[in-house]
């Protein structure tokens, strides 16, 4: 089957399937990433995000399905294609004995055309660490260097697998800045994450992935809107109120258990909160705690799967 080639599309895949022994990591996955957008694969650990992105990167061969990248595919001149991609693997390890400068020079040498390593060092604020060995860098600096190695070939598409996992808030912000800057220059980004705030902040469009399938797709705003709930009330009462009674409250759309609390998705806090308090009072129950927040992708994931994105955390 021939995939329709479009200069609007940077990455497209259809019907991807990948099994490892008994486990089906990717179970029929379709995606389309437009040029110039930042596309996020959001899902919990083990959802098949890494397998999917590595299939797109040509590092894993799918059992079924097809991939089209920049109007070509992996069967056709893979080295040419690699010239146009920048890749940062999950927890990329680089040679610890080399310095930042040496590492970038090495990666630059693989590309026929690319950016000046000096400029990349400056752009990624690694100037002070230029002569430092990779083994001596902090987690945030290592991750920035990993992205630098992906950028030094001046790619059209940047693949980032869990780029901020394990980073401190400051390093996360710096990394988000790098992605935004690359986007601003017209680059296309495909990233995976299990942080909903990362997906909301960085991505133009997000595919929520679970059990190797896309279960929701759209802009973060569209996805959140699909909840039909603007806000979420998290609370705990003793004794607990029946679920049916909670869903009968004005504007209530969903109720889910979240740890010791119940999460109630509502259309408008101004109506729902007084009604909830009244209901608690009427039932003779005691309110243990109550908090509210704007609805997020996390709430959507809970609504779609009944589980949290970062199970057990």
């Amino acid at each position, binding site marked *: 089957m021939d995939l329709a080639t479009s200069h609007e599309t940077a990455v497209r895949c259809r019907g991807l399937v990948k099994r490892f022994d008994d486990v089906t990591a990717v179970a029929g996955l379709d995606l389309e990433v437009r040029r110039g957008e930042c596309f996020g694969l959001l899902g919990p650990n083990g959802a098949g995000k890494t397998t999917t992105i590595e299939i797109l*990167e*040509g*590092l*894993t061969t799918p059992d079924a399905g097809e991939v089209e990248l920049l109007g070509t595919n992996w069967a056709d001149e893979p*080295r*040419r294609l*690699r*010239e146009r*991609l920048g*890749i940062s*693997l999950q*927890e*990329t*390890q*680089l*040679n610890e*004995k*080399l310095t930042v*400068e*040496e590492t970038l*020079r*090495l*990666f*630059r*040498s*693989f*590309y*026929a055309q690319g950016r*000046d*390593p*000096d400029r990349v060092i400056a752009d990624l604020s690694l100037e002070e660490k230029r002569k430092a*060995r990779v083994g001596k860098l902090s987690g945030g600096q290592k991750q920035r260097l990993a992205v630098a*190695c992906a950028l030094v*070939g001046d790619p059209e598409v940047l693949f980032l697998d869990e780029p901020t996992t394990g980073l401190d808030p400051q390093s996360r912000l710096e990394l988000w800045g790098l992605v935004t800057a690359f986007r601003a220059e017209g680059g296309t980004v495909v990233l995976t994450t299990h942080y909903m705030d990362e997906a909301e902040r960085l991505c133009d469009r997000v595919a929520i992935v679970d059990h190797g399938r896309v279960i929701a797709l759209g802009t973060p705003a569209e996805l959140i809107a699909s909840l039909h709930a603007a806000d979420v009330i998290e609370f705990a009462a003793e004794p607990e109120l029946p679920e049916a009674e909670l869903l009968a409250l004005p504007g209530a759309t969903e109720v889910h258990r979240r740890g010791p609390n119940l999460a109630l998705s509502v259309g408008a806090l101004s109506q729902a909160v007084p009604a909830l308090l009244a209901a608690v009072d009427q039932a003779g129950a005691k309110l243990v705690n109550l908090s509210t927040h704007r609805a997020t992708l996390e709430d959507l994931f809970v609504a779609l799967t009944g589980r949290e994105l970062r199970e057990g955390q």
Partner: protein
Amino acid sequence: MRVRPPLVELTLARAKEFVREPEAIFWVFAVPIVFSIVLGFAFRSKPPDRIPVAVATRAATAPASPASADLAAARAVAALARSPFLAPRALPASAAREALRTGKVSLLVEPGDPSLGSAAPLTFRFDPTQPEARIARLEAEDALERAAGRSDVVPVRSVEVREKGARYIDFLIPGLLGMNLMGTGIWSLAFSITNARSRRVLKRLVATPMRRSDFLLAQIFARLMFLVVEVTLLVGFGWLAFGVAVRGSILLLLATCFLGAMCFCGLGLLIASRVTTLEGASGLTNLVMLPMWLCSGVFFSSDRFPAIAQPFIQALPLTALNNALRAIVNEAKGWTAVAPPLALLAAWGIASFAVALRIFKWK
């Protein structure tokens, strides 16, 4: 920033990685030198010992000065000292007897009184069951007669034959060189490739447009960069410290070292072609190297193993390399003589590379 071609950058990166690993430097450069020092001194060949001989003086006490010493005894000591095999000293008669009895000297010489002629002859006292004592007696008699003016009826010339190249250190240095070429070749490739794979550096490199052949060639080139240093260091040390000279062609020696290094690079690559953990690579490396350490004639000749084991031992690449190195260094053999072991090395190398490249796991 000036960026060199990928093969150059990869080779330099690998060389830097190696140099920045102090343990690697120690094993590659220091250990063979330490081995050659320890074993070279332990098994050094000594000059022949001089046999201790006592000459009895007539004085009851030890001679305090040459003037007070018995003149005949002094003359005898001087005559005996001319023999390269004797270590004479003058002792008072009683002390001299005691020294002979306790085995501190092998021979006791009691000078006679020339004025009394055969009534007071020169006397040798010794234990004829000891070969050293018999040698000392013959040597002493010869030295004393000669000093007294005996002229040889038959002209005699002695030529000392002390062959270099037949000492243990001469055997050892080529063996250590072979061992080092094996260890460095196998270990440097097996370790660095497995390390790159286990830490997913290899996968990251494969995700770039890097040519895979460049990566593998760089591993080999980086290893060859150290080959010259290794060979020069060990051969130079053997020559300066122990006088182990390369009797054959230096060019042939270098060519053999090169071929040996390449062969073991192939084995290193084969070991590293699929393993994903350093523990696995370490186990495989030992499995491959240990039999060759023991059997391939590094420290002692592989001929000492029974005939039934010889076909296997002779087929090992290190046996071939050591045989070729010894033939060149010790026996000054030429190209034709070392062609069979070199062919065996080449066969091992080519087979290893061919299999390794076929089964190599990049991701």
